[in-house]
């Protein structure tokens, strides 16, 4: 009874992923490619060899964190789409400590990681404060903060963190502040353990502590939360801070945990869209930290496997992005169906 209830969201997510893949097959076919061969290449590219699998996980690492940002927001009753900007600042913070503040080996790694997380959290405090004390809707404020973060981060990357003679990127992380690469043939580093560990920690916090209970209560039923003596402002700030920590870690992971650059591009090219992609991942993962990990692996597999699909079958890699979108769309199908039934099919 209990297990079947717990597994139901998983089954639903798998069904929508399947639905999305079928719709994607139609799209691939429409572009004149054989869907069977394309998907074979996709799967082989993502999971065919040990290195492919590791590369899939490397793509998945930041996504499970930005998904966490969105998922925690939803659990706390917020539509926090600010992971993108919080992640930029996280990358900047990590770059600064990793590249410009020499420290002993392991301390440096920890400090750079924490700096990234802290920068993300501080950036998240802006929409948090606007929401908690001024009632500004978080969708508006996080979108605006994303743009400000984009230009602020580019400014900092170019002016503060730039490496002389290398206009296209910032100073690289010093070797003392780099996560160890797990396999020479992939870009996966030990930061994946930190990411998974952080997701599990947030899971334990939300479902295992009094504060996590109150956060979820405020998201589930704000009136009942008031009845239970939960202060809404506190929940808003807490939710944003946890999300900011996750997004900051996502940004940091791409600088101090992803070869070969070990730095932030001046265009932010090696981190852009990771925050927005996390929203889709969170939806597929049913706004659950564990589901987010699984969803991130799926999207990582699409990103990694898509390369081989393009190479072998000639399917444009943009179609892989379309596939992401279709799967997220498919998540809405059950609700869409009931909407259609309500609207048009009643007697």
């Amino acid at each position, binding site marked *: 009874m209990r297990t079947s209830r717990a597994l139901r969201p998983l089954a639903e997510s798998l069904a929508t992923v399947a639905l999305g893949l079928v719709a994607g097959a139609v799209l691939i076919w429409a572009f004149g490619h054989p869907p069977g061969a394309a998907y074979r290449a996709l799967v082989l590219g993502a999971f065919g060899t040990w290195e492919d699998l590791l590369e899939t996980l490397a793509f998945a690492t930041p996504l499970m964190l930005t998904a966490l940002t969105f998922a925690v927001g939803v659990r706390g009753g917020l539509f926090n789409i600010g992971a993108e900007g919080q992640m930029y600042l996280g990358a900047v913070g990590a770059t600064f400590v990793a590249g410009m503040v020499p420290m002993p080996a392991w301390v440096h790694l920890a400090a750079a990681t924490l700096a990234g997380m802290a920068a993300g959290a501080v950036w998240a405090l802006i929409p948090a404060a606007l929401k908690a004390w001024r009632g500004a809707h978080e969708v508006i404020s996080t979108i605006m903060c994303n743009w400000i973060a984009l230009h602020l981060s580019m400014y900092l990357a170019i002016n503060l963190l730039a490496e002389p003679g290398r206009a296209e990127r910032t100073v690289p992380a010093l070797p003392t502040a780099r996560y160890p690469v797990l396999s020479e043939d992939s870009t996966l580093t030990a930061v994946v353990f930190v990411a998974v560990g952080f997701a599990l920690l947030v899971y334990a916090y939300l479902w295992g502590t009094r504060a996590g209970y109150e956060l979820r*209560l405020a998201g589930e*039923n704000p009136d009942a939360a008031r009845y239970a003596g939960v202060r809404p402002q506190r929940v808003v700030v807490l939710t944003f801070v946890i999300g900011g920590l996750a997004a900051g870690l996502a940004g940091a992971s791409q600088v101090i945990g992803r070869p070969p650059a070990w730095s932030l591009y001046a265009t932010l090219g090696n981190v852009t869209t990771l925050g927005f992609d996390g929203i889709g991942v969170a939806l597929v993962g049913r706004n659950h930290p564990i589901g987010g990990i699984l969803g991130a692996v799926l999207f990582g597999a699409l990103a990694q496997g898509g390369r081989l699909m393009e190479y072998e079958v000639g399917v444009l890699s943009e179609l892989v992005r379309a596939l992401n979108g279709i799967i997220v769309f498919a998540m809405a199908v059950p609700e869409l169906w009931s909407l259609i039934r309500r609207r048009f099919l*009643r007697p």
Partner: protein
Amino acid sequence: MADVVDGGVSAPAPRVQMRGIHKVYPDGTAALRGVDFRLHPGEIVGLLGENGAGKSTLMKILSGLLRPTRGEVLVEGHPARFRNPSDALRCGIGMVHQVFTLVPPFTALQNVLLGQEGAGLLRALPEASARARVQALLDELGLDVPLDVPVESLPVGVQQRVEICKTLYRGTSVLILDEPTSALTPGEADELFRFLRRLRDRGVGVVLITHKLREVLEVTDRVVVLRQGMVVGELSTGSATAENLAELMVGQVTGLRVRRTPRAPGQPVLSVRGLWVRDDQGRLAVRDLSFDVREGEIFGVAGVEGNGQSELVQALTGLRRFEAGEVRLEGQAVPTLEPLALYRRGLAHVPEDKARFGLALGFDLVENSILGRQRENQFLRGLGRLNRPAIVRYARELVERFHVVAPDLATPVRNLSGGNQQRLLVGREVSKQPKLVVAMHPTRGLDVASTVYIRELLVQLRDVGKAVLLVSADLDEVLELSDRVAVMYGGQFLAVGPSDHFRRETVGLLMGGVVPTGDADQPRAPSPR
């Protein structure tokens, strides 16, 4: 507009007729049980009844918002099936709801035109061409509405006129108004009534949903009284009196008797002095209330909903700020907006809407069993962690002791019946070992077994010396359970006294805002202390 004019001649068939209407909601509540209703052109019909009598449900069916489970609607003698309110509007039936459906920053003109023929997703509202027609309609009806001011800056009474105009502009000849005066000042209400009479004289059929006896007597031609989903009386207003309407509305005492032995009350546990509370719109909803609830007594507050009961209870339970006055729990002043502090000092609160305040429907039984108690040490371990085994044990205890029927403890509370949800909630609150229990509508919508169970539980609490404040729109419940009764109307207690001093009819009148005269043995003037 053509319809309005055509309707002027008296037609043989009723303008609209409803036959054998049943409505069962998905949760099993039977809101209507075989109701017949008809409306002729050029009459004002009052639809009278207590909360939950089925007035709004019946009219929502007529206006296409709800579908009947059984029964038929006839327009001009022909069967009609409405899929949505637009269908009903096409048949000339429009409803003005208690909560307006205006777009606040739009002007009155834009609001009237919104959703009309000719306005499309990609086309601008035909403001210029329609202005003359809207103005003509307003002039014709004698309504004064400034067309170019954002409606949010208009007073409520004028907003209501915009809402009515919006409905009539679509050619409505059957106008349904749901508690139209609840937000109006007395002056605005009088003006509305004058307007409704003019509409009637033009051949429009008007249905006035209300629980206020005075309004029914003042403006309607015919009254239909509903109780528990059935028509219990239909009479022409000329032959009706406040007394017989009140009697029809509240009915006779029903079965569910709970034994209550006499008991001398003890010290005051809750003392309220000069309490003023505002509602969400900033209006004064509770006006200068003073009363005590003592150990070992149930103090019942009767009244039709919307007379300040919700605001009173919320103020007493730390959910709403009070404007002025003093509330003491066991002699100590209570802080505002600190429900946890109140719980610690012995308050148990069974809120008016369990699904809204008292439970998180998506959470399971285990998590709901500590809602509001999540900071008590017995449910915590070090580092702010929840002591899951202790919580599960406690949830199991609640389920067994209060006979909650659920597949297992991990079931989301959403999947429980209303009766079982309420047993869990009441059980949780009662097992706090409270000194004061505040319960609002504790048995609303519950099955008979749960109703009796919860009523008996409240009496048991009283018998062991707890103070109980019972606020309910169910008159039988209040009269049966309470040691003392107050009738609340317009934010005040119109009468307070021992429950056996009240007759049902008197309370019915008081609930309708009529203070009975020349009845010497009735407690009349508010005697709070």
